[in-house]
C-alpha cells in the first residue's frame, strides 16, 4: 500500500476525501461522496488498513452507515443500528463510528442519537444495542445538548485494555466500562456542569469531545463545555487544565499520537460560538495542560471561524499532522506539528467532521 495520509471530511452536504503522499505537501480532492447527505463522521480502521466508515444522516430516507473496504473507492450500505422492539428510543442518526481494540479486530462501536451505543462484531455491517449503557439507571438524567437531541458522540477505546472504554454523551457526561461493555458507571469526578444548580453532578456534564490516546493505555482527554480535562485510568478525578486558554469554550479537541502529554484544542467565544477576535487558532499543550501555546502561523489573521466537535484530528506521522475544518468550508493542515498551517481545501459545504487515515 502506498504511504500517505487521507483526510476525511464530513460536511452538511456530503463527504470529501483529501489524499496526499507521505510528505503531505500535495493534496488531491475527491467528492462529494453521498452528495446532499449530512455526514457527521468518517473513520478509518487502522487494524485492516482498508476500511472506511461514514455516518450518513440523510433527511429523506433516514440515516445509514456506509462501509468501504477499499479506502473509499466503493461503498456498501450496512444494516442500521436499531433499538429493540418496544424500546422508548427510535434511531435517528449516527454521530460517531470508532474501531474497536486491536485484539478484537471485528469489533466496531457507533454512537447515535438519541444517546446510545451500538456494537458491531462483523466489521460494521450489523449493529447491536448496548443496553447496559442505553438503559443505565442514570439515563433519565441525560438532557439534549445544543444540537437539540441527546447524542453519544465520543468513544475512547483504551489502547492498553480492550475491556476499558470511555464514552461521552451530550449532555449526560462520561461513562466507563472495564468489562468490555457489560456494565458502565459514570466517570465524571472533577468535571463541572456550570449550567446546572449543582455544578458537580454525578452525570449530566456537557462533554463536547472525548478521546483516548491511540497508543498509550489508560490516557483520556476531553474538551468539555466550559473546561478542558485530562485523566488517566488510575486517577480518581479529571484534572482541570482550562487555565491558560483564551476562552472557556470550544468543541474540538485532539491528543498527540506520539506524546500523551501533548494535546490540541480550538477555543471559541461561548456567546457567538466563533473564534475570538484574534482569529481561529490551534492551542497546544506539551505538558498535560499546565501551559498552552497559540499556534496560528499561516492561519488567516482575525478570521472568526467555527470548528465543530469532530472538526479537528491528527495523523500518525512524525512530525504529526494537524488538521481542522471550519463551518465555512475550509480545511487547514499542518505537516510539522503546528509550526505552520496551509489551506488544503476550500469552498466545501459546512464542515461537520475531520478525521484521518494514515497509510503506512
Amino acid at each position: 500500500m502506498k504511504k500517505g495520509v487521507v483526510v476525511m471530511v464530513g460536511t452538511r452536504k456530503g463527504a470529501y476525501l483529501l489524499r496526499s503522499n507521505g510528505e503531505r505537501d500535495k493534496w488531491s480532492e475527491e467528492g462529494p461522496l453521498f452528495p446532499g447527505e449530512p455526514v457527521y463522521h468518517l473513520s478509518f480502521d487502522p487494524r485492516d488498513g482498508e476500511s472506511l466508515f461514514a455516518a450518513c444522516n440523510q433527511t429523506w430516507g433516514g440515516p445509514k452507515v456506509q462501509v468501504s473496504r477499499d479506502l473509499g473507492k466503493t461503498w456498501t450500505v450496512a444494516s442500521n443500528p436499531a433499538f429493540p422492539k418496544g424500546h422508548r428510543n427510535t434511531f435517528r442518526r449516527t454521530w460517531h463510528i470508532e474501531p474497536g481494540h486491536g485484539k478484537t479486530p471485528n469489533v466496531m462501536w457507533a454512537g447515535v442519537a438519541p444517546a446510545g451505543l451500538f456494537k458491531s462484531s462483523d466489521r460494521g455491517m450489523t449493529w447491536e444495542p448496548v443496553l447496559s449503557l442505553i438503559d443505565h439507571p442514570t439515563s433519565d438524567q441525560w438532557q439534549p445538548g445544543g444540537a437539540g437531541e441527546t447524542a453519544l458522540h465520543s468513544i475512547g477505546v483504551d489502547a492498553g485494555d480492550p475491556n476499558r472504554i470511555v464514552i461521552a454523551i451530550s449532555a449526560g457526561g462520561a461513562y466507563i466500562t472495564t468489562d468490555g461493555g457489560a456494565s458502565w458507571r459514570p466517570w465524571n469526578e472533577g468535571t463541572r456542569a456550570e449550567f446546572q444548580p449543582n455544578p458537580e453532578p454525578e452525570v449530566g456534564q456537557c462533554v463536547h469531545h472525548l478521546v483516548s490516546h491511540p497508543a498509550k493505555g489508560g490516557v483520556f482527554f476531553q474538551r468539555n463545555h466550559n473546561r478542558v480535562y485530562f485523566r488517566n485510568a488510575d486517577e480518581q478525578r479529571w484534572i482541570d487544565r482550562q487555565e491558560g486558554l483564551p476562552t472557556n469554550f470550544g468543541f474540538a479537541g485532539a491528543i498527540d499520537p506520539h506524546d500523551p502529554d501533548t494535546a490540541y484544542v480550538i477555543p471559541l467565544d461561548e456567546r457567538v460560538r466563533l473564534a475570538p477576535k484574534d482569529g481561529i487558532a490551534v492551542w497546544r499543550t506539551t505538558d498535560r495542560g499546565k501551559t498552552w501555546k497559540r499556534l496560528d502561523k499561516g492561519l488567516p489573521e482575525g478570521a472568526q471561524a467555527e470548528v465543530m466537535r469532530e472538526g479537528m484530528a491528527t495523523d500518525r506521522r512524525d512530525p504529526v499532522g494537524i488538521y481542522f475544518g471550519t463551518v465555512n468550508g475550509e480545511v487547514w493542515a499542518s505537516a510539522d506539528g503546528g509550526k505552520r498551517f496551509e489551506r488544503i481545501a476550500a469552498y466545501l459545504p459546512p464542515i461537520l467532521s475531520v478525521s484521518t487515515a494514515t497509510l503506512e
Partner: protein
Amino acid sequence: MSQVTVLLRGAYRDFAGRSRVPVEAATVGEALDRLAEACPAVRERLRDEHGRLREHLNVFANEEDIRRLDGERTALREGDVVHIIPAVSGG
C-alpha cells in the same frame, strides 16, 4: 387484492432504482410492504426499526394524503396509484 402502482419520486426513486413498481395490495400498508419486498434497499428508507413511516416522507393514495384518509389502512382499488414523495423539508 388489487393491482396497483407505486410511483416513487426524488430520493426514493434513487433508493429503489426505478420510479414505478406494480404491486398487488388491498391497503396502502400492504402496497408499501410489497414495494419493500421488490426493492429491499427501500425498506429502511420507508420505516424506522419500530415499523413507523419515517419523517420527511409523504404517502398519497391517488391524490389524497393518507394522513387524511385511514393512514396505512387506507383501502386500495384496482388501478389505484400510491405516491411516495419526499416531504418539502428544510425551506
